[in-house]
């Protein structure tokens, strides 16, 4: 593993415990290596910052109004409910009609007798 790769893995937190102690020794002993590490750290901080700016820019460009969701209602449903409702009304009326009719006749007879 060359220095570049070692530093990259160190900055990304991918080193093993053993590799970590090796790199720490190297940082103390080798100023050129230390400077290279600082340089690469700055590069990663810069990449991170540009990612932050890019994400915020993308978010700024999102239209913040929620989309209107159109409900696709099957028109046949209305037709079916309409037919069912009509049948219910017809059946109800046909059952109740004779009773209502009788009640009206009795009422009218009573009314007639009173008038008489």
């Amino acid at each position, binding site marked *: 593993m060359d220095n570049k790769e070692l530093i990259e893995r160190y900055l*990304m937190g991918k080193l093993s415990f053993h590799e970590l102690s090796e790199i720490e020794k190297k940082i103390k002993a080798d100023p050129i290596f230390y400077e290279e590490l600082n*340089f690469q750290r*700055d*590069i*990663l*901080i*810069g*990449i*991170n*910052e*540009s*990612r*932050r*700016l*890019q*994400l*915020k820019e*993308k*978010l*700024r460009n*999102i*239209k*913040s*109004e*929620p*989309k209107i969701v159109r409900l696709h209602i099957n028109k046949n449903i209305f037709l079916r409910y309409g037919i069912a409702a009509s049948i219910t009304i017809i059946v109800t009326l046909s059952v109740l009609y004779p009773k209502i009719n009788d009640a009206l006749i009795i009422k009218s007879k009573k009314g007639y007798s009173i008038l008489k």
Partner: protein
Amino acid sequence: MEDKEIIRLIKEGDEQALNYMYIYNLPSIKNYIRTNSGSDMEAEDVFQEAIYVFWRNVIQDKFVLTENSKISTYLTQICHNLWNKELRKKARFTNEEYIDPIDDTEIIIEEEKVLTKRQQVVVDCILKMGESCKNILHLFYIDRVSLAKIAENMGLKNEDVAKTKRYKCFLRLEECVRQNYKY
């Protein structure tokens, strides 16, 4: 979109989740900031920052989805913390006394760090790079997406092609910084 799906998309470097989180959570955040002496513009800015914090925390496994956690609640908590920080800053500026509300979260928002001159040069160099280089650097170093997935997302032939491209882009960035940064 389910929370699990959002986490999966973020981990794969897919930004579809961004739109969803932004559109569906922004109204409640605007409401909160408006009732706490902020404007719509400030609300949008705080929310954009919150999504970035959330995004990073998912990538770094600082946010783990459990049965009791919801992304919308977590995002709201980040916004509350960011807005409290902002109010504290404003109070300092106007010499007013600012009383911290009780913090209902354990989410720590890192202090904004001012970039050094060299770090700013890095940012400028990346902004000048082509989209594909920029993307591969972001996906690999920040979003921590695997090279195989990067190859798939970017329409590259295979993992090796992605690896070479990432390496070349990094070298180009290094060169640009060395050329433009003077001690």
